[in-house]
């Protein structure tokens, strides 16, 4: 049976046909149907919402074909990890091979409130995704890698990444998404990420979508008691990126680092909404987003730090820095604090926007660098504040390589020399 379905024409029947196509178990069929109802009951943003004022969805390509037969994820699972029970596989494969585990975790929670519609849509209409599971107490040695390459630009695809680090486990994961340049497409991937008690997780996302892609993404990261989580979003591609990221500090003593690297040019628009929800005592959450903006690129950042009533000794910081490399580039950093408790250890934020300091550029040129090289080095140096926090070699190399596409070749060599 074939099923060609445009994203805008999805309905309950079509959702059912996705289940038919993958011969899904009844629980999953019911789950999708339930989420479809939720998607229908949660209207898409109107543009009046605070988080949606800076990105219009008018030109979102809703009439492209829904990608049903996505190529399976390419995954790299370090040796020994599989034997220890670590699972890293395509979500469709996981439904067949580990139905009990997937049923336990899939579609159990709401995503970021501002992205509720798209979260529900992906839960109903996903046709691919990632299932990454690290059992309790297992420390994965090496880097887990999952890469999705889309076959065409003019597609809609709403995959789900389900990333679970159980109690006391340790893991490092790099997830990449790549699509060809050209026509407009809609990439609506969501991530549902959980770090159990005392788990240690590093989770990096490298987005290299084609220049016609609309990335309307959402991620929800739950940090349990004493867990330590670092997330990194490296946004390099796409025409429009609109990302909602909620980091929920639900367990006492949890720590999160929320990092972002944005390199955008041409007419790219990037709009990030973050929530750092400090809901438990002694939690720490530090966010750092760096954007380098070329040509007519525009980056918005609207982040909220919420210190919940009654919490004690939380510590948080939100920092958003923008380097404007062209007269037509623009930035709107808006780091919001909502603080309902007074027993806080630390809470602050900072935002900057500006060009390269001309004296810095001049200094670099007095050392014999031409202006273009000098600018590349300075941008690379600007990114170092985040790059230095990427301890994993594989991830650092992949991300620097991707950034080089925008900021210029061989950046790492230049720095080394």
């Amino acid at each position, binding site marked *: 049976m074939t099923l060609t379905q445009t994203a805008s024409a999805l309905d309950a029947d079509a959702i059912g046909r996705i289940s038919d196509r993958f011969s899904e178990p009844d629980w999953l069929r019911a789950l999708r149907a339930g989420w479809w109802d939720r998607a229908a009951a949660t209207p898409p943003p109107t543009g009046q919402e*605070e988080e949606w004022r800076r990105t219009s969805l008018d030109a979102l390509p809703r009439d492209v074909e829904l990608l049903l037969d996505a190529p399976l994820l390419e995954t790299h699972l370090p040796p020994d990890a599989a034997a220890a029970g670590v699972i890293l596989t395509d979500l469709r494969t996981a439904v067949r091979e580990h139905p009990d585990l997937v049923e336990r975790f899939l579609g159990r929670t709401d995503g970021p409130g501002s992205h509720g519609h798209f979260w529900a849509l992906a839960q109903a209409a996903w046709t691919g995704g990632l299932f990454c599971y690290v059992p309790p107490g297992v420390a994965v040695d090496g880097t887990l890698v999952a890469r999705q390459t889309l076959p065409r630009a003019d597609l809609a695809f709403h995959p789900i990444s389900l990333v679970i680090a159980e109690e006391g486990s340790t893991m490092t994961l790099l997830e990449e998404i790549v699509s060809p340049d050209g026509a407009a497409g809609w990439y609506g991937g969501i991530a549902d990420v959980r770090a159990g008690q005392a788990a240690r997780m590093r989770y990096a996302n490298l987005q290299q979508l084609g220049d016609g892609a609309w990335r309307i993404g959402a991620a929800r990261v739950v940090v349990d008691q004493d867990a330590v989580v670092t997330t990194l979003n490296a946004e390099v591609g796409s025409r429009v990126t609109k990302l909602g990221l909620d980091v929920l500090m639900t367990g006492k003593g949890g720590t999160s680092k929320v990092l972002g690297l944005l390199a955008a040019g041409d007419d790219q628009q990037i709009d990030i909404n973050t929530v750092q929800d400090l809901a438990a005592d002694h939690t720490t959450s530090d966010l750092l987003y760096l954007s380098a903006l070329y040509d007519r690129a525009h980056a918005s950042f609207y982040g909220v730090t919420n210190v919940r*009533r*009654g919490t004690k000794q939380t510590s948080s910081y939100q920092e958003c820095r*923008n380097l*404007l*490399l*062209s*007269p*037509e*580039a*623009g*930035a*709107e*950093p*808006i*780091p*919001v*604090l*909502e*603080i*309902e*408790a*007074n*027993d*806080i250890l630390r*809470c*602050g*934020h*900072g*935002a*900057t*926007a*500006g*060009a390269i300091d001309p004296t810095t550029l001049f200094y670099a040129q007095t050392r014999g660098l031409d202006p273009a090289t000098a600018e590349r080095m300075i941008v690379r140096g600007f990114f170092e504040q985040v790059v230095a926090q990427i301890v994993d070699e594989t991830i650092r190399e992949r991300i620097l390589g991707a950034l080089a596409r925008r900021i210029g070749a061989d950046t790492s060599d230049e720095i080394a020399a």
Partner: protein
Amino acid sequence: MALPNPALTQIPGGYKYGWHDDEKPLQIFQKGLDAETVAKISRVKDEPEWMTKLRLKAYRHFEARPMPNWGADLSGIDFQDIYYYVTGTDKAVQSWDDVPDYIRRTYDKLGIPEAEKKYLAGVGGQYDSEVVYHNIREDLEKQGVIFLGTDQALKEHPELFREYFGTVIPANDNKLAALNTAVWSGGSFIYVPKGVHVELPLQAYFRINTQNMGQFERTLIIADEGSSVHYVEGCTAPTYSTASLHSAVVEIIVKKGARVRYTTIQNWSSNVYNLVTKRAVAHEDAVMEWVDGNLGSKVTMKYPSIYLLGERAHGEVLSIAFAGDGQHQDAGGKIIHAAPNTTSLITSKSISRGTGRTSYRGLIKVYPGCERSKSTVRCDALILDDEARSDTYPYMEIDEENVTIGHEATVSKVGSEQLFYLMSRGLSEAEAAAMIVNGFIEPIVKELPMEYAVEMNRLIQLQMEGAVG
């Protein structure tokens, strides 16, 4: 004499200015608002036709716009349960003896005329809808400085008035500014001619006396080229169980090379919704400064703005907010950089206590082509109690590359180590906490006229009594 700090003394357990006069007003319109009420206000004031038309246009705009839903809770406002025009006098007078007795008693209690004698260049007083007293020193008058009630200015200087009125905040601005344009009454009109420096501050004092009163004063300040002026306003109201509304509009034009400072110490009683639109335009080499202190009211939403329209113009907002039990101070500032080489600074200090909530809400916008603009925003918040809340919403829209824009904020509580250290030097806990709070707001207090600064410190001391422990 007591310090002339009309607005500052909010004492825990009793608002000092919460009393009211029982005197019947001379003229009072029925509660509620429609086009006829708007026209009637204009008629009573015997205004020119263009003003009546402008009021009605603004009223239509007010009706068409939704209530702002992005800030404080405004659900307690019922526009039909408000008196839009109440007056105890039919004209502003220049001699204190000519002010009606009961109104004069009110101002005597507040210390206004003494203040004028002591250190002010001029003073205006507004009681409910109308300005009741206006005076300015002779030497300034001789130099051509105009300081009048706004209604009087419309009559006496119609051309100057029409040239500037509504040019900074037009009739179709935000809902509450439109309401003001429709029903405005009173306020101050100041014109400072070219090159004239008004050395002492001009002051106006606003008092709401009637229950369910809406006060909609309209202030217009024009500082001509190379001139300077400092204007100070204070506000109080009786404590009633039902809400009053204060929705003022202040427009300021700072011409080439001129300098204006506008200081507000707002100490409305805790039943007043204080929703005010304040905006200034600063031309080439001009300097505009807002010093904005918010201590009273139930809800305040106020974001003094500066449009930097000429090269090298400079704008500053110094904002201080203190929210006690049940209060929400949603304050901040906006600076729009619309010319090259413009600079700005916003400093915000907020303190929340009890169940109070302070919100800093600000905007820095830099238009394309405004090269070498610089802006710094610094927000600090102090949260004194478990139930208190503090928010920071710092908006920035930067559409020019060659700029330096920075924002920083910290939020803290009074540290137990700081308290312990001060107490080890023999201070009580309350004194120690008050001292820390005073240190926290010091950068703003030092910008106030001295009498206000002293009073501000005393006020903080009083606010802080019983705050800790």
